[in-house]
């Protein structure tokens, strides 16, 4: 199974880096949104709360542009049937899940420094900020993997992915924003449970997604 997952993951990355479509779109969106924001703000200082909201809005919509691609591509290129026959359901889910997690980490790694640079933001608790960004990104990727599989079956309509994901991800965004604000202004207490919530959410939703995936993936 491990080999199968690695093989499938490698295949997904090879296909992605051949066209780099999802990655290009997501990063281009993030860069354009951040630069536009910085340009229109014209150096206006925002409060830590507004900065956190803007950061997570950009991360969320950048993710929405790319995360569904992993399943939509299989349906568009008509390779899903081949994948269904040759690779076990669990391996498909785990490899797609890992792909989305890595993809999300790339987006976070690009968006966050850009955002801090263009909006000239000072982070008071840098470690806590990085942990929040990673935990929030993981939660987004965990939740959107199963939604992407559903959307791919519905014809991969772009707006449907955002509509389905947004309400499910609101608790994550809610907690991530308050936690990021704490990291920016240094007010977050050491025992803040936000990170625990984000990691627990990721674990919980991943487990449910893993159980549900076989129903979505296998056509009867």
């Amino acid at each position, binding site marked *: 199974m491990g080999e199968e997952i690695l093989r499938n993951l490698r295949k997904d990355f090879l296909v992605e880096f051949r066209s780099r479509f999802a990655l290009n779109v997501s990063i281009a969106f993030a860069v354009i949104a951040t630069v536009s924001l910085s340009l229109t703000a014209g150096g206006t200082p925002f409060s830590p709360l507004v900065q956190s909201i803007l950061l997570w809005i950009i991360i969320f919509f950048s993710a929405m542009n790319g995360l569904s691609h992993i399943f939509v591509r299989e349906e568009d290129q008509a390779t899903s049937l081949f994948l269904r026959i040759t690779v076990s359901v669990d391996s498909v889910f785990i490899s797609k899940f890992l792909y989305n997690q890595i993809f999300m980490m790339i987006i976070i790694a690009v968006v966050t420094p850009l955002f801090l640079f263009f909006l000239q933001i000072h982070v008071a608790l840098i470690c806590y900020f990085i942990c929040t960004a990673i935990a929030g990104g993981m939660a987004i990727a965990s939740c959107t993997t*199963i*939604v992407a599989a*559903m959307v791919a*079956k*519905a*014809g991969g*309509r772009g707006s*449907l992915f955002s*509509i*389905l994901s*947004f*309400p*499910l991800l*609101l*608790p994550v965004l809610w907690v991530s924003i308050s936690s990021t604000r704490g990291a920016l202004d240094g007010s977050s207490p050491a025992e803040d449970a936000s990170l625990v919530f984000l990691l627990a959410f990721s674990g*919980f*939703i991943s487990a*449910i*997604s893993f159980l*549900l995936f076989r*129903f*979505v993936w296998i*056509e*009867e």
Partner: protein
Amino acid sequence: MTILTRGVIKSFYILMPLAIIMAFLWAPSAAVLGDFSRIIYFHVPLAWVSVLAFLVSGVLSVAYLMDKKKRYRWLDEKSYNSASIGLAFAILTVITGSLWAKLTWGSFWNWDPRETSVVLILLIYIAYFSLRSGLSGNEQRGVIGSSYLILAMIMLPFFVFLAPRIYDSLHPATIINADKRIYLDGRMRMTLLVSVLAFSSLYAYIFHLMNRMLSVKKATEDLHAGD
């Protein structure tokens, strides 16, 4: 239909008029809020029934996915029916809550954690209806819709129980609270209980009607297919 089911559905005819009479004539008005407080006998049961309907839709979805031999018919359609009723009741909860908020807090909307939670639950179920529409004509509509309803059901505890207790709320202490005490006068408590039962029987009644309509629709479709 079992005698129990029939009893629950018929009880609506007794419980609902009784709840209305008790709410307006028997229960005392609250000390500070006065007669405005009587909206509690409609707002709280509506909220309860919407959560109940969403839970039923989630449980039916689990049953649909587990029922490999398809022993039970149209479980996905029934879970859709329950989610529809839940959505309607949630909208009524928001409307009655807004009226009450205007009378007690001075504005229709205050972004209170409980208000925010209800809106987010509404968004989740509106998204479910969008997904169902997107899957129109797709053979996997039932499976995918049910999977999303299960995801929605597992998000419910966060919105219903966790968020309003984590964040500071304008709402009074809930019936399930840290002190394990119900802060209501005896007659008010009784009226609320009867009202909750009345609205639950209303849900059972509507759900039963919708499922009967579904059976008729399916039977008609089968007849046309036979022709």
